[in-house]
């Protein structure tokens, strides 16, 4: 088991390492991490810090995908929670009041929970296909976020709020700590408790799971709720990072990146087995790629070509069939049985 797991995450890890090393060619002391004003500072820290919202959203997405679903609405949830929190804070007399900030953030997270339950209800209760069920919130949610902000960017000036996405605690960016906490919580819920097994079972064969006595409806609602909560936290982080809420642009296309992270991490979109570690690696790969593009100065017009190249290489390397077909053939030329293409074609 252990070897299998190590195997599964081997290639994403290799690719991440390769990307990081590429950076070293262009930026000296890329790996340097310094202490500045009591904060850790450096490119590596930045990658994790900027990747934090994506990791969060992707973690939630992993569980949704493991049940065979998909959640397109996370981007909208990101913008809604950010908008609501900032709206509340901007209306406070003292924006630096911790209790007010906590209440605002809490309210926003409660809203994200409600939205998650809503998605789960549409999928599991009404039986709408996940992609359409969440598309509804994806479209309407962004409108909702703009309704909250009245189409403007709400700027806040709140120290405590700033902490969530832009602050430091114990020398580490607070965002990283949040990610670690959520990751630990998710891992505990799914791997320590039996939730993971139930999720994988529902995603692997829904009817068989039902007949085995699993309340798949509850499981599905739970994962959508969890995904929305993760997106909600990510939304707070994103808006706190720039101290403002942008209903239209916050979290735009993050669902695509999150799904990509999950898939790169080795979880199948068809549902079933999932890998939290893989997802984190996947998200880090995406964020590193973005950072790499900025720091080696890929012009904006060719950014997408570069991305296409990297994504292709990543998925080819990760594909056992590709490695088999390309590397294996060369390795065992003598004893190998005729490969698929060379097989004798028998006339009908």
């Amino acid at each position, binding site marked *: 088991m252990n070897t299998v797991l190590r195997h599964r995450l081997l290639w994403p890890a290799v690719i991440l390492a390769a990307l990081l090393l590429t950076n070293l060619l*262009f*930026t000296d002391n890329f790996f340097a991490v310094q202490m*500045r*004003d009591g904060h850790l500072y450096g*490119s590596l820290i*930045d990658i994790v810090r*900027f990747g934090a919202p994506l990791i969060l959203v992707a973690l939630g997405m992993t569980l949704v995908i493991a049940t065979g679903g998909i959640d397109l609405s996370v981007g909208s949830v990101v913008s809604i929670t950010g908008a609501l929190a900032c709206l509340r804070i901007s209306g406070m007399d003292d924006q630096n009041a911790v209790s007010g900030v906590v209440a605002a953030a809490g309210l926003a997270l409660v809203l994200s929970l409600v939205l998650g339950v809503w998605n789960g209800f549409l999928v599991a209760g009404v039986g709408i296909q996940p992609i359409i069920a969440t598309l509804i919130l994806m479209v309407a949610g962004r409108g909702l976020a*703009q309704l909250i902000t*009245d*189409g*403007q*960017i709400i*700027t806040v000036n709140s120290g405590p709020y700033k902490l969530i996405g*832009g602050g430091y605690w114990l020398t580490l960016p607070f965002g990283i700590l949040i990610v670690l906490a959520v990751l630990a919580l998710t891992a505990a819920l799914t791997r320590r408790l039996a939730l993971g097994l139930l999720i994988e079972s529902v995603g692997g064969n829904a009817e068989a799971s039902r007949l085995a006595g699993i309340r798949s409806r509850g499981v599905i609602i739970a994962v959508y709720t969890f995904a929305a909560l993760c997106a909600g936290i990510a939304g707070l982080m*994103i808006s706190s*990072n*720039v*101290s*403002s809420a*942008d209903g*239209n*642009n*916050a979290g*735009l296309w993050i669902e695509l990146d999150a799904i990509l992270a999950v898939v790169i991490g080795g979880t199948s979109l068809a549902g079933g087995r999932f890998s939290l570690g893989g997802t984190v690696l996947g998200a880090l790969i995406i964020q590193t790629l*973005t*950072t790499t*593009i*900025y*720091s*080696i*100065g890929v*012009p*904006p*017009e060719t*950014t997408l070509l570069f991305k296409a190249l990297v994504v292709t290489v990543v998925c080819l390397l990760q594909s056992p069939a590709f490695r088999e077909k390309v590397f294996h053939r060369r390795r065992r030329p003598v004893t190998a049985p005729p490969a698929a293409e060379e097989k004798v074609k028998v006339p009908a």
Partner: protein
Amino acid sequence: GCGGDGGSGGSAGDGKITMGFSQVGAESGWRTANTKSVQTAAEAAGVTLKFSDAQQKQENQIKAIRSYIQQKVDVIAFSPVVESGWDTVLKEAKNAAIPVILTDRAVDSKDTSLYKTFLGSDFVEEGRKAGKWLTEEFKDTKDPVNIVELQGTTGSAPANDRKAGFAEAIGTDPKFKVIASQTGDFTRAKGKEVMEAFLKANPDIDVLYAHNDDMGLGAIEAIEGAGKVPGKDIKIITIDAVKDGMQALADGKISYIVECSPLLGPQLMDLAAKAVKGESIPARVVTEETTFTQEQAKEALPSRQY
């Protein structure tokens, strides 16, 4: 000058004008202010406004215009998402004898009789203004000036034009070097992220040119995070002059802002009334726009509406 003969009479008979307005979207605070301005001006002028939001898609705008023709509005106004590709639908409008007014962005149609007038700013000129201020500011230095640029959404008209205008203005002098240029998608978050990467990769940046205020504001956070002082260590030029940007300008964090005014509403209603009546109107109306230095910002700030 385009002839507003016969055709316009019938539909405007009751004196109350119906205008179909197709907006690009609500992608920024600037755009929202623009929408608000049009809406309030319409109300003030007693114009019935049919508003639709294209969500940044040209096909949606074309659909909207087509449906305005179907609904027989008196005048159509729209802010084109992109310059090209309007001939077909504008011809339909012309055939239906509905005058068309462009706002904010132009179209590149050869047949200028397809629209009455174009009301809006000149993005290339905005880029030029930004570049000109920069050359003024640094005219005494001999050292090379390292510039980083935060572009708008790749391919969008303001990004293309503001980049071109700026490049044109600084182009002659070899001491101005754009050492890094990347898209920040017109957003604060991206602006911050890209700027952080710039700061890591390039130790000495002298100037930041951002295609809008929001990216500039994001970049300010990045610069402060890196322990530098925005406006001092790195001079910042942005475009738009929204309220948050003006505040930062007044606070000395931004050095210079080129205004791009979203308040086209009253002018638009004026033009629309004239177009419906068939009066002749100029083919190009430039919105009144200015530039702000830090001192001017302090003065203007209290009276800013958006």
